């Protein structure tokens, strides 16, 4: 276990180092921030001063080395546009995205797993077919369109839920969260549902495929022959066996929801990281984009680690590190 963690940390450090090079090089390939940042009326002297101030006059490798040196001490540069530390900007938006993503995942699990198991147990029933047809819709409908439909239905026509913003927030250790207030939850619900729709479909399909496979296993038959109740057979014997693929995919999806919930955040004007990324790319605010991408990489690493730890909880045959095989 300890060996596993140490090895994993070393791998993560390498991943982050490689990613920072890629991100830094990639960001150089797109546009020249000077054109966007400095007013066209500025004269040559002002331009040169601005370029020197931002450090853009130095060659790329020098820029990278100074960036990397600062990054090691936690400084990912200062936003060209806002003039404040880039990492601060990203982390400020992070809680909003995190809570939205978490709620979306909870919705996906709470709706997706029961429906998927049902469809897997009774694949030929009407309900099973309807669930599967519905999951195809969930896969195919574009997120932005569903988001607008949700706004039209629940915010405009019915007026039940607000259409945009975060609503009231409560500070926990100085970090604002919406999910602790009723008003905040109301604001979260529609965007979370929008984000969850695709994941629900995914979870339904995984749970159904797993259930169909597991339900035919001898150990399920043996469980029935032991006289167990159907609730126990489905809720323990089947559920625990189908969770491994579900957890794997949910882990990956959780990362992508946090990193790329751009569309939903735009539609619902949710002040999360996705919106910050789009704005920063448009303004060629390099440090913010770099900081954002590095935070995302870190996030994926952490999620993958958690998923691996969950595996060993779910399946006793998986021993982390493989040292004691």
């Amino acid at each position: 276990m300890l060996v596993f963690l140490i090895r994993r940390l070393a791998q993560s450090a390498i991943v982050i180092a490689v990613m920072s090079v890629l991100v830094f090089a990639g960001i150089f390939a797109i546009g020249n921030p000077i054109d966007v940042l400095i007013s066209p009326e500025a004269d040559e002297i002002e331009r040169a001063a601005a370029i020197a101030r931002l450090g853009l006059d130095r060659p790329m490798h020098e820029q990278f080395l100074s960036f990397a040196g600062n990054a090691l001490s936690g400084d990912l540069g200062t936003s060209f546009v806002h003039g404040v530390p880039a990492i601060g900007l990203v982390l400020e938006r992070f809680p909003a995205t995190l809570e939205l993503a978490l709620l979306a995942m909870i919705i996906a699990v709470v709706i997706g797993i029961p429906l998927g198991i049902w469809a897997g147990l009774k694949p030929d029933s009407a309900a099973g077919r309807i669930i599967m047809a519905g999951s195809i819709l969930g896969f195919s409908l574009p997120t932005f369109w569903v988001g607008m439909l949700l706004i039209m239905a629940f915010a405009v026509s019915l007026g039940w839920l607000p259409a945009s913003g975060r609503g009231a927030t409560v500070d926990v250790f100085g970090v604002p969260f919406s999910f602790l207030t009723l008003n905040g939850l109301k604001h979260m619900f529609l965007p979370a549902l929008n984000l969850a729709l695709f994941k629900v479909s995914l979870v339904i399909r995984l749970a159904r495929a797993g259930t169909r496979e597991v339900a035919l296993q001898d150990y399920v038959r043996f469980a029935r022959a032991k006289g167990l109740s159907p609730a126990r057979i489905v809720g323990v014997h089947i559920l625990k066996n189908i969770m491994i693929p579900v957890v794997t995919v949910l882990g990956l999806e959780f990362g992508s929801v946090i990193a790329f919930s751009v569309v939903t955040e735009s539609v619902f004007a949710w002040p999360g990281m996705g919106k910050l990324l789009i704005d920063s790319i448009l303004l060629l605010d390099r440090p913010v984009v770099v900081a954002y991408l590095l935070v995302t990489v870190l996030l994926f690493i952490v999620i993958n680690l958690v998923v691996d730890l969950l595996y060993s909880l779910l399946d006793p045959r998986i021993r982390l590190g493989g040292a004691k095989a």
Partner: protein
Amino acid sequence: MTRQEPVLEVEDLRTHFFTRGGVAKAVDGVSFTLNRGEILGLVGESGSGKSVTGMSILGLIDPPGRIVGGAVRYRGEDLVKAGEKRLRQLRGNRIAMIFQDPMMTLNPVLSVETQMVETVLAHDKVSRQQARERAREALVRVGIPSPDERLAAYPHQFSGGMRQRVAIAIALLHQPDVIIADEPTTALDVTIQAQILFEVQKLCRETGTALVWITHDLAVVSGLADRIAVMYAGRVVETGTTVEVIDGARHPYTHGLLGSVPSRNRRGEPLSQIPGMTPSLLNLPEGCAFRPRCQRATEICLAVPPLSDGGHGWRCFHPEGAAA
């Protein structure tokens, strides 16, 4: 022998599978009686319907299969007519089952303790602690060393033979009246097989549990069973005490089976084979299902032969040992 009241009576049981290709009559009129503490060997080739018979007794047949007729009487109560709730009370409690492949019958992600304790709690209102104690005792009874450690272990940490012992321990938890063992030693190697056979026999004798031992191996049951029923294509073709069936086989199929078992008396001689293959259940020959493979078959075999009366019965118009 038949003085005792039977604990399980199967009468004219019919289980059919309604598939796209037609109706497969997997079990088509099987009858047998099981007395208290008796061991019945249910013998047949793959596809003869012996496993389906076992499943039918506990009502574990899934669609497209269905019990279409007959009765399964447990102490006089017809289980075919019983509801799911009643069946669940009996399963694992009064009638337990052991399956063929010990690698597959234990849930890989649940500890042995969980799987045993849940079986106790499914039928008895006892505390978790008491249930655990009973699970421990059951493991001791089937000869598993250091039961406390073993309870905490997971199935993949056991060998095949040990897993089958665990499955047997689970079957014994409620001291059932009947255990249906569906080829429980087929997947094990021969030495383990012998141990398990010996122990199961001992445990059943001690507790008075009746046993239906389903197998394709006549040699196994000949040393174990009190009585034998030979199945072919969904029907019992010969039944009687072990001595009657093994030493005085009348049905040509039983005869063929016995001829294909290696024996010390016929050293060096080639083993005899039954010509042909088991017929498809979707397309059974008319009359006696064994007719196309039988050298003694005649016109009369186009009708289904009745099971002859008496303790030793056979379904054949031209039994071995009679003038052909």
